[in-house]
């Protein structure tokens, strides 16, 4: 399929998902189930990635601020960088890699093993049953995981600054929220919710239409991670431009 | 010479082979039969060293596989050929590249012309002349088996092993593959070990039959003796599938006999 045809197909799929969401034809139970699964699956990986990154930010930041004697600025820089950009992006990358690929793997197996076809034949709606709950779960899970990631990231920065580089803990904590505004927190929530939505739609789309047995599932999982990231990083640029445009 | 001496192997709680002993005569074809899950594929994997027995000895061509080093194992494998259940061909390569593979991977591979000649020879003997440049992914099930077989014989092995050669094939293709195996048997005259649950195919091809049930060998005999065995599992396999004619040979059962 050409790129435009694919985009149209994906758009049609997304529209179907959104329609069912809006008309409330989905099961809250199933959604909560998927939500808890996603949270459980992605929690450790998100922390395992954002935390070391917080540490690295502190490391590099201190190198620079040392030149100006402005070490005390580190806490605020770290928290702002992590909250505004690093945690949302990195956490979402991991959610795509872990949660997104799990979705695609599950739906892909169902598709290639003809479970979805069987569901349709029984007169049931596989999109309502399997897709919508996953998309909602992903949209909700992503911001939650981002909060965990942000905490871990700032924790990592704190650890490096105080225990490895010997900065003052009190000053660090004191300065932490200097430059962070409520807008930042809201913006991060909105961003990650959008990212989660994108990951949810892309991962379920690719799984739902997977073909070709086990190899097809492998290909679909591969595509999910790359394409989700591509899409939400582009969305990130647009969102950030819009938000900061709005600010200034 | 191939033999198993008091071989046992389990996977977790499930004991798949219980103190199994057998000798598979050189130069003859032995078919190993049994219900699904009886342990047939496990025996095959033990014979090629893909699995190690928990106890007992597995002897193939003078090498005891339990104690063999990696080098000895690989050295032994070069004298074997195996046709896998789903042919295990490399989809990204052509027919020719698949068949030539074992030759090309040798430490000192033969010259290109020699390889081409042997590939053509192999393809010829499995009835697929001219298929060299075809893509493996486009072949039918029967054709894949033939290519798999061509690949297995190209190194001129001393033993050929077959893992359910008829699996996944329609009756006509299955019969064709059986005929091919019989032909190979005549042409090559080497030891064949065939794992199957298809009793009719086994009777066509084998000199000896070995029946596995619940991890033990319940009957192991030349064909004539096997046919008159009293063991319930053997009878279960034979009845309705095979009938003995007046001269003690096998004939296809009548419809009444099939319906029982």
């Amino acid at each position, binding site marked *: 399929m050409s790129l435009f045809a694919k985009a149209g197909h994906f758009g049609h799929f997304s529209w179907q998902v959104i329609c069912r969401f809006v008309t409330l034809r989905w099961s809250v139970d199933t959604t909560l189930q998927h939500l808890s699964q996603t949270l459980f699956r992605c929690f450790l990986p998100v922390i395992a990635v954002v935390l*070391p990154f917080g540490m690295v930010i502190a490391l590099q930041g201190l190198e620079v601020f040392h030149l100006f004697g402005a070490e005390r600025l580190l806490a605020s820089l770290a928290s702002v960088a992590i909250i505004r950009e690093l945690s949302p992006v990195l956490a979402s990358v991991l959610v795509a890699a872990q949660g997104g*690929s799990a979705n695609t793997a599950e739906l892909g*197996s169902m598709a290639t093993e003809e479970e979805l076809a069987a569901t349709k034949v029984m007169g049931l709606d596989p999109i309502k049953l399997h897709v919508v709950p996953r998309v909602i779960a992903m949209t909700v899970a992503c911001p939650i995981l981002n909060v965990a990631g942000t905490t871990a990231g700032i924790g990592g920065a704190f650890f490096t600054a105080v225990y490895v580089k010997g900065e003052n803990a009190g000053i660090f904590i004191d300065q932490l929220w200097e430059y962070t505004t409520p807008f930042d927190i809201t913006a991060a929530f909105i961003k990650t919710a959008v990212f989660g939505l994108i990951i949810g739609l892309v991962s379920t789309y690719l799984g739902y239409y997977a073909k070709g047995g086990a190899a097809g*599932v*492998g290909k679909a999982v591969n595509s999910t991670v790359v394409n989700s990231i591509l899409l939400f990083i582009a969305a990130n*640029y647009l969102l950030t431009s819009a938000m900061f445009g709005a600010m*200034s | 010479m191939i033999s198993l001496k008091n071989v046992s192997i389990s996977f977790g709680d499930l004991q798949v082979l219980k103190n199994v002993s057998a000798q598979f005569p050189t130069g003859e074809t032995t078919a190993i039969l049994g219900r699904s899950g009886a342990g047939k594929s496990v025996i095959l994997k033990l014979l090629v060293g893909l699995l190690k027995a928990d106890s007992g000895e597995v002897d193939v061509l003078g090498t005891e596989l339990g104690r063999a080093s990696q080098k000895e194992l690989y*050295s032994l494998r070069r004298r074997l050929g195996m046709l896998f259940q789903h042919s295990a061909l490399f989809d990204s390569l052509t027919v020719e590249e698949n068949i030539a593979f074992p030759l090309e991977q040798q430490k000192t591979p033969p010259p290109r012309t020699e390889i081409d000649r042997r590939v053509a020879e192999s393809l010829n003997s499995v009835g697929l002349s001219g298929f060299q440049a075809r893509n493996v992914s486009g072949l039918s099930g029967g054709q894949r088996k033939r290519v798999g077989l061509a690949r297995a014989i190209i190194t001129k092995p001393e033993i050929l092993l077959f893992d359910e050669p008829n699996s996944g094939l329609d009756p006509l293709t299955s019969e064709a593959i059986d005929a091919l195996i019989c032909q190979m048997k005549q042409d090559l005259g080497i030891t064949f070990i065939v794992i199957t649950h298809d009793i009719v195919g086994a009777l066509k091809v084998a000199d000896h039959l070995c029946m596995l049930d619940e991890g033990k060998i319940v009957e192991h005999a030349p064909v004539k003796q096997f046919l008159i065995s009293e063991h319930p599992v053997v009878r279960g396999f034979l009845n309705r599938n095979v009938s003995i004619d007046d001269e003690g040979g096998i004939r296809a059962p009548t419809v009444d006999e099939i319906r029982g």
Partner: protein
Amino acid sequence: MRVAGPVVRALAATGRFGLFSSRFIRVMFQHRPPFRRALDEAYRIGVQSLPVLLTIAAFVGTNLTMQGYHAFKPMGGEKMVGMFVGLAGVRELAPIIAAAMIAAKVGTEMASRIAVMRIREEIDALSVMAVNPHWYLVTPRLMATILVLPALTVLSIYGMLVASYGVAVYQLGLNGQEFLDFLQRGATVTDLAYGAMKSLVFGTIICLVSCYCGFYSKPGPRGVGSATNSAVVTSAVVCVMVNYIISELVYGR
């Protein structure tokens, strides 16, 4: 205990991975290096990954510049954005994002290919044909990764810088020359070299982890999906942790 289970499994997996890598390293030098297959693989990796890498690196650059600008503006330091991009972008973000995308694109492909081979008994077939599957499957991929990754990383760094410049000058209205001056104060060619070196380490990690996940995959399409999943997540996590160690060694006081 619910916690003990996963931890024990993780430790067991780490041990198995160690065995896998050592078995592979032992075998790696026993045969002729597969130059032709490695080059084929390298070409595939390079050509397939480059567009995605550049696009993502570009967007990382754009956001880095925007965020840096807005962070420093209150302090009147918006002109220093160039330095910020150099420090954060060139030294840290670009190499790790490149690694993450390679894990996502190349790592998943390696893992799923090998996992599918495992299902189709192709790995067993290799063994029975007296070809060491570890050597045959992993060596060309590792050689290709080592060959290609540094180049890809450097290119993605440039992609990021181009996008940063674009945003700085055309969207935020900064002075191009100033931006570049500050950029060079934040990152030098040496940093580029360190980035390339980091990518060598990341590439090795991604390749070995992904091949391992493929080798030890569970049966069925679900097993393939799961192997692919583990490949990218484990690679990413290990790379990020190793990144900190490398940065500490290279840039730490």
